[in-house]
């Protein structure tokens, strides 16, 4: 990212508030916490209304009325919903994610934290790697496309991104597996980590999942960067810079990019948030041993405590990303720091 061009810095006219950024952050965080509270209620109610409860799911074909009653007692399912909600939320706030329902029927207690500890790292590795490619690629290709507007390269990038943007990740993933794994035999089609190895020691298994996630998110960000760069490139100050005889490269990178990035940060943030959901689908398609796969399995066995706690964790990540993105925009666009209510 380029240094802030000194000639573009707009000095605050006056300091209406002493710590506008701090106030902004505080407001955003408060809103985030409020949102999380609502999310926690929705999660709880949503999992409550699912047909069948944990007890019936665990016992399945073996359920007897006595067995069900005993298991429901064990899982505290006979307590009223508000009490269980409060119990769960207060535990969660204190860092206790609760106990996984799977295993309780037989007296095996497994904390949710211990179940996800190994998987969080795998998922984070996948997400970070995707972001590491997503950000430079979308900015690079978007800027390139904007500077070559109307030329074959621009058309090529636009058409390709339009084509892949319309494919959901399970389709992209399947097509990539077909092409690279089944037909060409170049890459593993399933992300199996051999026992005793870590995901980072097997970079090959990350390639197709990362490509799948990129295919679904890159198109949108490229187009957004392109659009905002085009707008900036058409503005008067760029025209002046060109007239002043600056080289085009300098005009684009030094003067246009900075302003073009502000809306892009929001779009990037949106896409990174989307990744949180996209990863769940992608992990399942590739059999990647991450958090998403565990979540899908938990839903299928009605491990409600697991779904609730991991769901809320994901919501926290999502909302935090939102706040970080907003802050980045504020830092990128000085006007926002000063011109608030």
């Amino acid at each position, binding site marked *: 990212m380029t240094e802030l061009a000194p000639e573009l810095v707009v000095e605050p006219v006056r300091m209406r508030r002493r710590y506008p950024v701090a106030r902004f952050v505080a407001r955003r965080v408060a809103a985030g916490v409020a949102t999380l509270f609502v999310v926690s209620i929705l999660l709880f109610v949503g999992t409550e209304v699912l047909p069948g409860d944990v007890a019936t799911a665990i016992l399945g074909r073996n359920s007897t009325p006595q067995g069900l009653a005993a298991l429901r007692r064990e899982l505290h399912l006979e307590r009223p919903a508000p009490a269980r909600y409060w119990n769960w939320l207060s535990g969660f706030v204190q860092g206790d994610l609760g106990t996984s329902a*799977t295993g309780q029927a037989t007296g095996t207690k497994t904390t949710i934290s211990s179940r996800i500890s190994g998987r969080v790292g795998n998922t984070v590795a996948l997400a970070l790697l995707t972001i590491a490619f997503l950000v430079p690629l979308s900015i690079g290709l978007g800027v390139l496309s904007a500077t070559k507007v109307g030329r074959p390269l621009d058309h090529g990038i636009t058409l390709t991104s339009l084509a892949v943007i319309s494919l959901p990740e399970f389709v992209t993933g399947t097509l990539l597996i077909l092409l690279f794994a089944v037909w060409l035999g170049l*890459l593993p089609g399933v992300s199996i980590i051999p*026992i005793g190895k870590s995901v980072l020691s097997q970079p090959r298994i990350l390639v197709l999942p990362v490509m799948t996630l990129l295919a679904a998110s890159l198109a949108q960000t490229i187009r957004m960067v392109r659009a905002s760069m085009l707008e900036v490139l058409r503005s008067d100050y760029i025209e002046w810079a060109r007239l002043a005889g600056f080289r085009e490269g300098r005009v684009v990178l030094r003067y246009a990019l900075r302003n073009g990035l502000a809306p892009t940060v929001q779009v990037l943030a949106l896409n990174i948030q989307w990744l949180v959901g996209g990863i769940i689908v992608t992990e399942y*398609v590739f059999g990647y041993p991450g958090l998403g796969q565990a979540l899908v399995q938990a839903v299928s066995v009605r491990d409600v405590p697991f779904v609730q706690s991991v769901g809320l964790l994901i919501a926290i990540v999502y909302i935090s990303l939102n706040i970080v993105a907003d802050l980045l925009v504020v830092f990128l666009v000085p006007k926002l720091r000063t011109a608030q209510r």
Partner: protein
Amino acid sequence: MVSPGSSDDHSTDPSSEPRLTRRRLLQGAAAGLALGSSGLLAACGGGGETSSAPPAGSTGGAAPAASTAAAAGPTRGGRLRVGMVGGGASETLDPNLAVSSVDTARTLTIFDLLVSMDPDLTPRMELAESMEPNADASEWTIKLRSGVTWHDGKPFTADDVIYTLRRIGGPKSTSGGVPAIRPVDLDNLKKVDDLTLQVPLKFPIGDLASSLVFYPLVMVQDGATDFSKPAGTGPFMVDTFKPGEGSLFKRNPNYWKEGKPYLDELEMQSIPDAQARYNAVLTGQVDGIEQLSFAQAKEQKSKGEIQVLEGDGPQIVPMLMAADLKPFTDNRVRQAFRLMADRQALLDGAQLGFGQVGNDLQGQGMKWYNDSLPQRAQDVEQAKSLLKAAGAEGLEVTLYSSTLAAGMVESATIFAEQAKQAGVKVTVDNGPADTYYTDKYLKVSFGQTNWPPIPIPLFITESLTKDAFYNETHWHRPDFDKLVQEALGELDEAKAKDKWFEVQKILYDEGGYLIWASTPWLDGLAKNVNGLVPSKFFPWGNWDFGGVWLA
């Protein structure tokens, strides 16, 4: 097909350091509906060693009799990597808690049974050397194989057997083995000497061996309570186990079957998605997968990129008519429904031609299967006249279905079409798989179920008698129960056969099961995987990883 790179990545060198970290492993254990079955039903596994081709010289270089095309004998070494459906966090190494097929596979990799089932459904002695009944079959004396040791070096004795049986039958046990040992008088089990024990029964059982072939009945070590890394007597020892992800096993050098196992290492990976499993074996990331779909198996039978291991046994996905609920209270209606089914069309449509046409009786090919009864075929006219006689013309029924088992909802849909010919309107209700067993099963008048291959006496006691836990067809007949009890206690083979034939004749004439086909086990194996013989009992040649060798 196989990418050289990817197989290199995964065929990790066997000399890699043993990872002895003891993670908290029993991460949950209860049955989940993920695999849509209960302990007994999902599991009922057989013995770990069923190769019908024991190596002649019984050393690493001995020749397998009839397994695969490979001409040279078995070779020692290598790691076999298999892709299993998996059971998520509920995966366990405790045989009492095991539910999913990967649990079964691991159980029979680590442990052994007293009696196992050969690929052709004949019981064969494993850890038991012999079993002798007393005069009225109310007590059995079991002699154990000598020289068997646990992975930790201790000898295998009668104490282990007594501990295991009591553990399975314990008050809080949820083991799938409970039904099988229900007749055993656990309190009075008696150790005669280190290798002999007496097993008194609550009622006579003429064929005890057949009821001991299920995987929940594997022998665990006396006093074992921690199953995070249990010691067994089986072909492989636990190295690493991560529930829901995978596990690694090392060769047991002191295995009692000489020369076996051939592999140095065995790796099991949980790959829940069917397409991902298929891709994994096609691209060489694993050497074998379980539960090929019918379409995948058909494709590979013509393409031949991988071997299809087809265990054509008596697994069933039948329809159920509840004999005490309208309209099936009238036997004529039940029989009419059985006559409405075009079984071959169901087989071709729902299972793409795999399996064998069924005759409304469970256990095709099993001991005491009544094969003297004529094959029932579609007869629309007779079905119509039976319905007319029962005053049930223009009948409308709902068939409660789900996607619990392969071919389930497909067969329901095809049957609904066939029923139209007899003027019966069948509406298929395709409900969610994860609540089917709690919301619909045992409650509706017309539904579906699935059973793995289990011996006929056990199937009948578990689903058709007074105390049956899975009385799916609501079959309450004291005279029938009495006949079953007599058949169970009959020591004379010929008489026992007659009695079981009579029991099945009643079910054939009046029962509520519509068993239209048997469903095979379909595994996909890379071309270099040798030594597995298709088993009618369970997949992977009845989980015979000890007999596998890599070319």
